[in-house]
């Protein structure tokens, strides 16, 4: 009885210890797990597959380092996919850290042997327009004039001088928008201010906490597909044929989820057992 009561009010540091082991230990092992690609991710992949080589894809990275574990693998796998398919990438951010996160991802992807063979050039195959303050107002402005909203790229080059940006005036000249979001401003603002007024084709990647909020936009057709959390990132890597970080981290996430479930069941067992004893 005393043990069960102690279990009910267990010191949370014991729970923290178990979680620490559950998250950290699996990272040392490479375990291949079966990951099924769900329809929401499959739809996003299909929409991207329909783009011809040379299509312009706008990527908005709206997150900061705190969300890197979930969203950075999505950014890397997306850039890798675009470069492999010869899609032109225009990067921007509604969060100040977004363009920096893009550079971090590009640093990884551009060094891969398959991508290095492509001999990609900044300004021709990809550009980083940087960050502009204003949240959803930035999206609205881009609907009429992208060069005015981003007169210079993050390095200070004039946008109009970049070959990739020639003829890119507004969303009419963008074939697909991909948003990685950890909060506000993010996917919801892209839906409200780009999809609804300008009929932009939008795909998104969100943190697992944020993803449930985005499902209503998926079901209404305002979003072509969604990567929800690390699982969504892993599914996208499987769908594109390049399993990478997200797939590797899924073992750690699986073990952590299992440990939490075990604790919940244990807690309920102790709760019912003590209730029964008190009742009798």
């Amino acid at each position: 009885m005393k043990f069960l009561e102690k279990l009910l009010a267990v010191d949370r540091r014991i729970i923290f210890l178990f979680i620490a082991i559950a998250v950290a230990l699996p990272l040392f092992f490479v375990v291949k797990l079966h990951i099924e690609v769900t329809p929401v991710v499959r739809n996003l992949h299909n929409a991207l597959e329909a783009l011809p080589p040379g299509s312009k894809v706008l990527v908005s990275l709206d997150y900061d380092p705190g969300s890197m574990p979930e969203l950075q693998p999505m950014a890397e796998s997306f850039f890798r996919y675009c470069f492999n398919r010869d899609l032109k990438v225009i990067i921007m951010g509604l969060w100040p850290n977004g363009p920096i996160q893009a550079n971090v991802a590009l640093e990884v992807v551009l060094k891969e042997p398959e991508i290095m063979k492509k001999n990609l050039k900044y300004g021709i195959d990809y550009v980083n327009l940087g960050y502009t303050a204003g949240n959803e107002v930035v999206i609205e402005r881009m609907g009429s004039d992208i060069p005015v909203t981003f007169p210079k790229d993050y390095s200070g080059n004039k946008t109009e001088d970049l070959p990739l940006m020639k003829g890119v005036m507004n969303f009419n000249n963008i074939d697909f928008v991909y948003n990685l979001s950890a909060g506000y401003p993010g996917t919801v603002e892209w839906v409200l201010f780009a999809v609804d007024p300008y009929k932009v084709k939008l795909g998104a990647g969100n943190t697992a906490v944020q993803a449930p909020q985005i499902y209503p936009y998926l079901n209404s057709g305002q979003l072509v597909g969604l990567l929800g959390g690390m699982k969504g990132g892993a599914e996208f890597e499987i769908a594109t044929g390049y399993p990478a970080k997200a797939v590797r981290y899924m073992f750690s996430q699986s073990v952590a989820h299992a440990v939490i479930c075990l604790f919940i069941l244990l807690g309920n067992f102790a709760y019912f057992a003590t209730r029964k004893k008190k009742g009798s």
Partner: protein
Amino acid sequence: MVRFSFIFLFILLLFSSAIGQEATLPPAPSTDVMAKDTPNDAGGSITISWKKSPDDIGTVREENKVKGYEILRSTEGKGEYEVLGKTTAGSEIYFDTHAHNGVPYYYKVRALGIQSFSESLPSAPAKAKAQWIDWRRKYTFLLALIVALSIVYFINQAKSGKQLFIRKIAGLEAVEDAVGRATEMGRKIFYIPGISDMDSMQTIAGVTILGQVAKKTAEYEAKLEVPTSRSLVMVSCRETIKEAYSNAGRPDLYNEDMVYYLTDDQFGYTAAVDGLFVREKPAAVFLQGQFYAESLILAETGNYVGAIQIAGTAQPAQLPFFVAACDYTLIGEELFAASAYLSRDPKLLGSLKGQDVGKFIFLFFIIVGSLFLTFGIYDLSFLFR
């Protein structure tokens, strides 16, 4: 033998030139090119639509003869045309957003093949012009008008003395208990107005509730502390508390240092507030406003130090965390209703009743629309596009 090889070579040459000619043959041109002013805008835009080339299979594939379309524009029907833009194969619409109002424009659509192209006949002239009303938003306007008028109607009803029923909100009923608890224990009350700036309605709602809570802390002589994440919020909170203490008849208890700015950085702010919770061990914590990922960190730390916690946010993603870790949670619209509920001001209570009219309208359309769609009668969703 030699003759046969020459004949064979000749046939091969004929065949390859036929294939080459196939590649150089232009695709069939697109037809029915129409241009008209883009509706519901401030002018400067013309919508060009056309029937795609018969050779266009509609998707971007190797076997598609049509690789894309170029849109050409001229100010004279028979004059020189300039290339305006490009679209992918399968497209049948393009928006010219660089038209001058009142100027007639003619458009042609060029279907692009592998090595050649074909042009359509020019469209009739079209002029861009600005519209006074955005008719796409007519249903939004109607709904907003109905809700706004209902709110005004019920405010007037409340002003005239009519009693309006508002259901009990447990979290708000507990405010007085929480303040009383802090007074008895001699420990502080922390009020966290979220991490957004004053441009967020949730922050405004949080600051408004702070006014009511500050009134109670003044009456009970409890110690109140408000660490903020934005300097504008800090200024607003200071004024709010000063006013509340003044109205409660205890301006002597007000001190500017009750409200202070920490940092704009989300997790820097969270770390600082957590440190305050652990060191000061408050008796009560109010988390009212816009929160993001830091919500659970703050709520769990508050729970750990044994504080009674009343949270409220309109961030759907953070509500589950507050529900799990706090004693009371104001869910979504309850946060906006809190100021009316706590003050019991008839004018504010009337606005809550007006909100309910909007809810009934939505409920009606959800039920009727779902039934219609289920039985395949009619799709009402066009009203909400």
